[in-house]
Structure formats: C-alpha cells, structure tokens
C-alpha cells in the first residue's frame, strides 16, 4: 500500500461531507411524548403517520396538528396507511390493521395478520416490516435473538422464561452471537391479506428495513454480523438464503448433518448492493425509492437508506442478466461534519424514511437500540445540483459514471484520477469480515463523453463477485470544485454477459482465516511487539468500523480514544470486561462470543499502545 493510498484510506475514515443543495429541517414531533420514531409513512392523502418505539401511532393532519391513533403496541417498526382511518402496523407480536370505524379520530378495532411466528422475551426479537405487494400480501421479518444478556443473572434466568411457540436454543452450525430460538426467526415471511403467513426467504440476521421497488421487487437491508460480512441492500426472492444459517432449523426436513459452511456458501445470495461497513454505515434501515420525479433533485428512481450511524446512503439499482446489483454513495453526512456543510444536523439513529407529498425525504430517528437521537427531520432539495456522481452503471466492457454537472475534460481523460480498486469478503461464522483479495484494478481505457457529463471506465479485467471501490478526491467539475461525496462503490454480482460468481461477493474462509490474532498461542505472542501487532489486526477487523482507524470514534456512539482520555484510563480488567460484555448504551457488541481471551488481551494492548494510554 503506497503512501497516497494510505492517506486516501485515512481521509475516507473522516466524517462524510453532506451535499450542498439539500437542507435539513427538524419537524415538530407529536407533543408530550418521547419522539422515538420507529416507523414512518404517509397516507394516500399526504398525512404524515409515525409510530414510536414506545408503541404509539400518531397522525399529523393537514393543519399540522397531531392526533394519537393508537397506543400500547409492542415496539412498532413499520407502517402502511390505506387512509387516516385504516393503518397497518408491524409490531413484535403481529401485524395489526388498526381501524377507526366510529370516526372519533382514534382506532378502536384491531385485526391481526400473521402473528404465527415465535416470540421470545429477547430484546432482539423484533419483527421488522412492512412492505405490501400488488396482491395485498405483506412482508415482514422476525429477527434473530441475541445471545447477549444484560447481566449474568438475566443470562441464567433466560432459558426458563416463557416464549410463544416452540423453542430451540441449539445452533445449526457454528456458534454465533445471534440465533433463531423460536419459529421463523431469521426469515422473511409473506403474510396473505387473510392473515396467513408463510416462510419466503431465509438467512437474515436483522432485516431492519423492507421496501418494494417501483417494479415490485422486494428488497431488505441487513446488518453485518455473524455470517454477515458487511451490511447491504438485499434483493429478496422466494427461496433465497441470505447467509445466516440459524433459522434453517425450522425448514421442514432440516438435516443439520447435511449442513456445512461450504454447503451454505454455495447456496448464499449476497447483497444486491454491499454497503461496505464503515464508510457506508453500520446499521442500515428502511430503503425508500425517490419517486418524486425530480422534486428531490437529480437522483430520481434511486434508493435512500438511513443508517443508524448518522449517515444516509444513496443507492442505484440495476438488473443485469436477471440479477440485481448496483452502486452506493454517501448522501448526507454525520452531524459532526464541519459546520459550514449543509446537512450537518442529521440526527443519528435515523433508520426510518418516507418521501412526502412535498417531495422531501422525511427521516425518523430513535435513540433506542443504541446511541442515537430521538426525533423527526426532513431533507429538502433547494434546486441546486452540486457536483456529484449521479449514476454508476455497468456497461459491456466496464462502468459508466454520470455526473450531475460537467466534469473537467482533462480530468476525465486522466486515469490517475480514477483509482479503481476491488475487494470481496470472507463467508464465515464470525462477526463481519475483513476485505480480502483487495487489489487495484488498472484501466485499459477511459472514454469521456464530449459534454463532460459522463465517462466510461474500461478495466483490463472485469471480475464478477467483487465490490469495486472508487475514491474520487482529485476529480474536479468543469467550473472547478471537487465532488461533494467523492466516494462510491459498485457491487458486481454479474457481468452483462451473464457471468457471475459462486458465493456472490464472498469467498469461503479457510479454517482460521480472517481471525488473525486468534490462531496464535500465548507463547507465540511473547516476542516483543507480537501482542500489539496481533491486537492491531483485531482492531482493524472488528473495531475500526465504529471506533475508526484513528480511534476518534463516532460522536454519541463509539468512544473517541483520542479526545476522551478517560475511556482508556481504567484498569485492564474493567476494559476487558467491556470488550467481553459490550456496552449497551453505545451499541457495542459483546465480543466475548466473537474474540478469544487472547484476542481481547491483544486488542487492549494495541489500544494502550496506539492511543498512548497505559494502564492506571
């Protein structure tokens, strides 16, 4: 890795700038409540409807006044409004059709759809929704339960607590931090209008966002984690397997002896668009399509996904030889971006979204689940198109980039300004994955359009089954000025000639691969610097996505080891306990189930070494 690339990688880890041309405004939430917005939609008449994590559903009328439609629900995550008097709500136990039949402004009649999936007392037993196809059938996803408990007593008592439905605490394959304890957890379910649900697709961990494209294709987001190398936008078709095996135990005829990591990998469908963990967020939410016909700016037809970590991702899908794939870009940055940057006020925890009748993107945020903020915002286009990559599409020979404004013609002819790279991930039982097989992709040709609005990149080779990364910090507009968001990725699942790759954008991990620092014995690490070196690798693989390579973390989220010296000014035993058990308030996973004791010691040694914080 040369110095230029190192500097670029460092730059990419800094806060993402928000694009000019967009304005973020706070929207007054329902009065007198904690505005933890966990679902968001509009009625056909354009009235805003929100559901809160505390179980209330509110509707904002034309005059801007809120009224409560329903209360007492169990952590709603999705809404579909047929009208102001008939709204479907996804919550943990079931889908409810809430109706205000007597016209008093509050729903009094609730009809159940589905509700035949298992339900445990696990905090992670969400039911994510909600999408509805043209037949009136709904889609929803009961998420896997977590093996993490709030303390030893809770962990000991947990197996005795009652559940709805059958219960299985066994693992299908290798142990992981999440498992399917009750039926159909880890699945996408299809629920017919008469309320019967059926398994539709498997392999999900936490599908915290569902949506149907204008063409009617079903997409969902999923979080990185065990068997999940990175986050992404998944195309979900009947019979798919999306990576996490635990839910397969509920399949009729399930034979655990017939499963192996390789069998699963050969069945695996990886995301249509990978959102590389870190630069493209870490916990994506609901995908929404810009159907405003240009009212929201130059990205009509594209997809917007709010991520819990103070980022909105823009994605562009295309169907190539029957396979969905495409590009993703940062859209709005974190709220610790420089104050002059528009959009810097984006709330963290904004995982719910809907386009309003005014052409604005409404975002709902909740502080729940981690370290977000409660509230409601909208993003408006101010009519000014900043210099951005509006589109990245596949061609017969490579890729075509299209810009919102003409680029400098000389720059479009300069291959050095298009440092294309590619990488893929490992498929394994461990949390996330490092990038593997990462390599520069030399260009054989650059074909700029005469008007400077587009350029075709022709690589010397175009291998499917890789994520292509394109940092563009040195590209300028014809009128001067850099790209607002100079980073993009394209997930190449399939070439236009139909060639794809088994395992999608993953490679089957060799035994122990991707877990450096886990294979060494204590004796191996006695050499000077060996423990720190092993810890550096663990940090890069498992910690840098949140704490950042430079240790500056995420404001309000992952700890900043540089600015806040108190973080590491604790005895080793306390910090090892945090690494092992996680930090609930800051959404830090419990790495006790992920890293070996030696790995945990190694990463602590690296933290103390890299950030100058000896043990007190």
């Amino acid at each position, binding site marked *: 890795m040369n110095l230029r690339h190192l500097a670029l990688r460092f730059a990419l880890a800094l806060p993402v700038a928000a694009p000019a041309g967009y304005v973020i405004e706070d929207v007054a939430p329902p009065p007198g409540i*904690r505005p*933890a917005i966990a679902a968001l939609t509009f009625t056909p008449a354009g009235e805003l409807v929100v559901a809160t*994590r*505390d*179980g209330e559903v509110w509707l904002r009328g034309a005059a801007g006044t809120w009224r409560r439609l329903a*209360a*007492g*629900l*169990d952590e709603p995550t999705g809404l579909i409004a047929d009208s102001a008097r008939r709204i479907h709500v996804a*919550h*943990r*136990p*079931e889908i*409810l*059709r809430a109706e205000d039949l007597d016209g008093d402004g509050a729903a*009094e*009649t*609730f*009809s*159940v759809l589905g*509700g035949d999936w298992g*339900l*445990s*007392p696990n*905090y*992670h*037993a969400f039911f994510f929704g909600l999408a509805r196809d043209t037949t009136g059938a709904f889609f929803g996803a009961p998420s896997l339960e977590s093996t993490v*408990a*709030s303390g030893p007593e*809770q962990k000991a008592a947990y197996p005795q607590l*009652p*559940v*709805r*439905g059958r219960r299985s605490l066994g693992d299908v394959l290798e142990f992981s931090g999440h498992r399917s304890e009750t039926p159909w957890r880890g699945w996408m379910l299809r629920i017919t209008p008469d*309320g019967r649900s059926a398994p539709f697709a498997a392999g999900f961990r936490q599908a915290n966002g569902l949506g149907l494209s204008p063409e009617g294709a079903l997409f969902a987001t999923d979080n990185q984690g065990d068997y999940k190398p990175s986050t992404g936008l998944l195309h979900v078709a009947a019979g798919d397997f999306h990576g996490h095996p635990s839910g397969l135990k509920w399949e009729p005829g399930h034979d655990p002896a017939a499963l192996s990591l390789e069998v699963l990998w050969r069945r695996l469908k990886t995301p249509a668009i990978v959102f590389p963990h870190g630069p493209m967020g870490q916990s994506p939410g609901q995908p929404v399509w810009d159907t405003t016909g240009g009212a929201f700016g130059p990205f009509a037809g594209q997809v917007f996904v709010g991520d819990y970590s103070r980022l909105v991702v823009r994605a562009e899908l295309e169907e190539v030889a029957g396979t969905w794939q495409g590009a993703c870009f940062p859209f709005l940055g974190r709220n610790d971006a420089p104050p002059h940057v528009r959009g810097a006020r984006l709330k963290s925890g904004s995982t719910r979204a809907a386009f309003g009748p005014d052409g604005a993107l409404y975002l709902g945020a909740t*502080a*729940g*689940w*981690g*370290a*977000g903020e409660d509230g409601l915002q909208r993003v408006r286009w101010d009519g000014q198109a900043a210099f951005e990559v509006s589109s990245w599409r596949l061609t017969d020979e490579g890729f075509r980039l299209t810009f919102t404004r003409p680029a400098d013609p000389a720059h479009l002819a300069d291959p050095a300004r298009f440092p294309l790279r590619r990488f893929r991930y490992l498929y394994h039982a461990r949390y996330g994955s490092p990038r593997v097989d990462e390599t520069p992709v030399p260009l054989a040709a650059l074909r700029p359009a005469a008007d400077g609005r587009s350029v075709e990149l022709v690589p010397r080779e175009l291998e499917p089954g890789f994520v292509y990364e394109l940092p563009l910090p040195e590209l300028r507009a014809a009128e001067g000025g850099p790209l607002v968001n100079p980073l993009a990725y394209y997930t190449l699942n399939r070439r236009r000639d139909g060639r794809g790759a088994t395992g999608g954008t993953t490679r089957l991990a060799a035994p122990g691969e991707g877990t450096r620092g886990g294979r060494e014995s204590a004796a191996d690490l006695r050499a000077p610097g060996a423990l720190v070196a092993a810890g550096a690798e663990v940090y890069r693989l498992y910690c840098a996505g949140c704490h950042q390579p430079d240790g500056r973390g995420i404001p309000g989220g992952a700890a900043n080891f540089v600015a806040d010296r108190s973080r590491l000014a604790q005895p080793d035993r306390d910090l090892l306990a945090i690494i092992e058990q996680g930090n*609930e*308030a800051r*959404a830090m996973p419990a790495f006790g189930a992920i890293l070996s004791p030696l790995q945990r010691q190694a990463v602590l040694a690296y933290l103390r070494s890299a950030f100058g914080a000896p043990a007190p």
Partner: protein
Amino acid sequence: MIPRAALVLLLTLLVPALRAAVRVERVLLPEGATPGSFAVALPGGVNFCYDPARGGLSYVWTGGFLDLAPARPGPGKFIAAARLLGPVVHREDGPAPLRRGQPETAPALAFTGYTLRPAAIEFRYTLDGVPVREEISARPDGRGLVRRFLPGAGGDARWWHVTAGRPPAALGRDAAGALVLEVSWEGTP
C-alpha cells in the same frame, strides 16, 4: 397542607378508580406471561393479563396498572418485564379455555383481533374455525370481571370454560344470548 406521602397514597387509590377508558399495553409482562400478552386496565381499577396465544385470561391484579420502565428502557436496548402496581388476585391457565361440547378436548385457537369499547375490551379468535367474540368488563363493585362469549356458531351445544386445576364450568347464557362467566376474587387470591 396535605403531606406528600398522603397525596401519593390518595392518588394511587383514586387514579385507578377514576380511569375513564380502557388502556392496553403489549409489553413483556411478569408472572410467567407469554410474550405478546395483553395488559389491560379497565375503568374501576381492575387490571388483567390476557394471553392471545391460548385465548385466555392469565391473571388479574388490582390497584395501579404498570411500571413500564423496565419494558421500555428509553435509549437502552435490553428489556425486562414491566412491573405490576398491585397485587395479583386471580390466576388461570391452560390452552383454549372456551370449549364446545366436550370439555376435555382443546380446540385449535387462532387469535384474530381486539376492539376497545368504552368500558370493556373485546377479543376475537376462532376455535376450530368458529369465530368467537369475548368481551371482558369489570364488575360494578370492582371485585370481579364479567366475561361474555359470543360464538359465531354452535346452536344448542353446551359450552365450557376449562381452567387448569379446576373443574370445567358449564356456561349459561344471558338475555342477549351470550355465554357468561363471572370471575370474582373476593377472599381468593
């Protein structure tokens, strides 16, 4: 000047009695409640837990309703059962307690919904495909529940209410034709 402790006691006693509407909460509940159960507060200060998975009342408590803080932790993510703000005075258990014809045979139950009424809640489910409406309200003296079952079919067949540990109770009909069961906890927790 009323002492603060007396004021709190007074409000604790009065607020449940002054409840004007039915309130429902679907959160994790204690006392062995199945996840997905309903906590219902009725006007008059009577509260109960209803399990839609088995179509029956799980327990009744009096006084205050719920401390929701453990179940809705705000910024955190771990959840625990809400706390009951009063003593449990009645318990029931067992699958599909409403049975037609033979009390020994539990029918297949599917929960289909609920309706909030001014002073009652109506649960809807099917038993072996037969739709049933079950309306639960507080007895006027606040020391019992009135449960009215309205099966969508059944003719002259006998209907039973079966609770684990008790003999099956044959249900009679009121003037409107509904099957009626009163639950009282006078002297019986």
